[in-house]
């Protein structure tokens, strides 16, 4: 049993009661709501004649079903079912008095992008959302947990969730990352090492030199994919990087209140002598850019390493099936594997720093013939920030479509989807069969820089071989753009 970790401290501060089934009732500091998993919960609440107990601790946005073209967003939406979901959310949030960032608000975007960038998410909070990628918010030193719709109903009705305390695993990422290697590569490598179910029953505390060196966007990407490793929550202790990111955000405290709050943030950091249920070390020095070759996020390899034989993997049958689907060859590297689609965005890599990373690769270059390339900012705020710095032009000049904010092709609940057997270089988080909208489609997960490089080459390629075009890119790509 862990002791003195951030997880233990935040849990204790939020515990409401022991429940008869042996679980704890935990107060929810921030409930993020979107259109897909909430309407049924609002319906159940209505059936029970209950009201939302803490609307002031609740924030809503629309992301999964929204079209990402400007034309597509005029109301009513062309897709009647999408329109119905959006209308329900508008009505439900208005009735309950919940703040809602809708299509008419230029801060609308993916819940896990909007929550952090507007300053709603802060260290020492409990954050829930009806979305598995709620683990994202652990980047602030918060406990972020994805929940199902019945639990959303509970949070609406009681401001709390019933939950089991998990074992705390310290994931120590040692070493220094090389050029062209970043947070996405770190987390893909962690999942590759620990497996897609390695984190079941655990919360991951990420630490070590490589984690400390990451900016907030990088930390958000790491924590975002905790769930792909089976860990419902993953977090990073807050530090100066966290506090500086929060300073000046719209819904973060200001002035004296900020300094007072900081004392709380410092107080919930894991103690020096905290006890963990276990500790694993992952060496990130010499790490190459990572690429998924299969159909789960642990089927990953360095871009310069051969794709493994099925017999060398944890689950040979699954690996064989996956390789048949993706048509990759064991023994060969992923380099040169042709792509049809390049997709930038999502709650993993849809932030300003992610697009800046891709822009450094794209500046002065063009997308290969025949490649469909989408750049989908994670929020209206991200989009406007990039546009103010002229970075949208880098994408458009290179041949990317510059879109409006949403989940887009990550899960294809909107107009953006793979078609037929298309192969996609994707900055998203899941490469499951059918995930991007076509059961024959193929997804290769990689960092934003690697997606940009693949777009240019028309094939998976090592971004480290690219001059990152400082000469061309500096004026736009390196402009001070943090919103």
């Amino acid at each position, binding site marked *: 049993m862990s002791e003195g970790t951030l997880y233990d401290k935040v849990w204790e501060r939020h515990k409401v009661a022991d429940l008869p*089934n042996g679980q704890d*009732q935990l107060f929810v500091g921030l409930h993020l709501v979107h259109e897909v998993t909430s309407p*049924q919960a609002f319906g159940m609440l209505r059936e029970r004649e209950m009201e939302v107990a803490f609307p002031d601790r609740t924030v809503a946005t629309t992301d999964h079903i929204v079209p990402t073209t400007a034309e597509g967003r005029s109301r009513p939406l062309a897709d009647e079912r999408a329109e119905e979901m959006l209308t329900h959310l508008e009505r439900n949030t208005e009735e309950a008095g919940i703040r809602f960032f809708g299509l008419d608000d230029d801060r609308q975007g993916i819940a896990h992008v909007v929550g952090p960038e507007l300053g709603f998410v802060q260290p020492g909070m409990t954050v829930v959302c009806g979305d598995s990628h709620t683990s994202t918010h652990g980047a602030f030193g918060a406990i972020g947990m994805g929940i199902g719709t019945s639990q959303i109903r509970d949070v609406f009705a009681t401001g709390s969730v019933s939950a089991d305390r998990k074992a705390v695993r310290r994931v120590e990422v040692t070493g220094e990352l090389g050029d062209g290697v970043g947070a996405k590569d770190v987390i893909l490598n962690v999942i590759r090492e620990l497996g897609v179910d390695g984190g079941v029953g655990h919360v991951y505390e990420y630490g070590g030199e490589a984690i400390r060196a990451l900016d907030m966007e990088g930390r958000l990407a790491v924590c975002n994919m905790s769930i792909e490793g089976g860990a419902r929550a993953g977090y990073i202790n807050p530090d100066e990087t966290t506090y500086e990111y929060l300073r000046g955000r719209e819904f973060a405290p200001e002035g004296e209140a900020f300094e007072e709050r900081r004392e709380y943030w410092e107080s919930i950091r894991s103690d020096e002598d905290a006890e963990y249920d276990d500790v694993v070390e992952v060496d990130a020095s010499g790490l190459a850019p990572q690429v998924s070759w299969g159909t789960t996020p642990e089927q990953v390899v360095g871009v310069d390493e051969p794709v493994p034989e099925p017999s060398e993997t944890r689950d040979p049958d*699954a690996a064989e099936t996956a390789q048949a689907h993706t048509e990759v060859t064991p023994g060969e590297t992923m380099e040169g594997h042709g792509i049809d689609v390049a997709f930038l965005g999502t709650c993993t890599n849809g932030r300003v720093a992610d697009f800046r990373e891709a822009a450094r690769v794209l500046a002065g270059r063009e997308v290969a013939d025949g490649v469909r390339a989408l750049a989908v900012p994670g929020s209206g705020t991200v989009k406007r920030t990039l546009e103010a710095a002229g970075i949208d032009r880098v994408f458009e000049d290179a041949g990317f479509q510059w879109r409006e904010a949403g989940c887009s092709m990550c899960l294809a609940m909107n107009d953006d989807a793979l078609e037929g057997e298309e192969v996609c270089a994707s900055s998203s988080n899941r490469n499951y069969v059918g995930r991007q909208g076509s059961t024959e489609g193929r997804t290769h997960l990689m960092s934003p820089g690697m997606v940009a490089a693949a777009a240019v080459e028309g094939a998976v390629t090592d971004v480290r071989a690219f001059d990152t075009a400082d000469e061309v890119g500096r004026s736009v790509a390196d402009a001070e753009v943090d919103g």
Partner: protein
Amino acid sequence: MSDAPGPAGDDASGADDGASVPAIRRVAGTGVPLRGDDIDTDQILPARFLKAVTFDDMGTYAFYDRRRDEDGGRNDHPFNEYRGANVLAVNDNFGCGSSREHAPQGLMRWGVEAIVGESFAEIFRDNCKSLGIATLSVAPEEAEALQSFIEANPDAGIEVDVREETVRYGGTTVEGEVPDAMREALLAGIWDTTAVMRSNLDRAKAVRDALPYTDD
């Protein structure tokens, strides 16, 4: 649906707000074997069917893409072949990925009342608890043995005992594990947690008031 008995429920107990749920001590019926590790909730319920404001139609969409050929016809997927079954037999890390409750809702509305497997993804298992679907973890070889038994004896009775944490079939009793919180909740008929948590609302407000960030 089959004539197999449903969950052996006791009288409703506990909640008093229209959310009364039965105690679930055992689930008896027939099985449906579904082989494979890491079956994610996108397979169980493809995202395009999430575009609905209720769960009513989700039973139709359970494993929708996996149940169909390229030309849209039904293939020999277990969810086509074992209609009427209520005990699902799976392998490792079942239900990983997206938190969508649509997945267990789809399974439940198709007819699943209990799931036996090597292991389950956490959010999926929590969602099962919310819906009163029992999950029993058993050793990997036991999960496979159960699947083989069902394949050879599709009409044979299978019983998941929540209290004993066992699955019984063909004269065999296999011990497994139902997570403590789920076991308590199912046996006592308190798997719908809204009422009990709502009764602590004043304490929740006190916790809120003591937190430094809730004035924002």
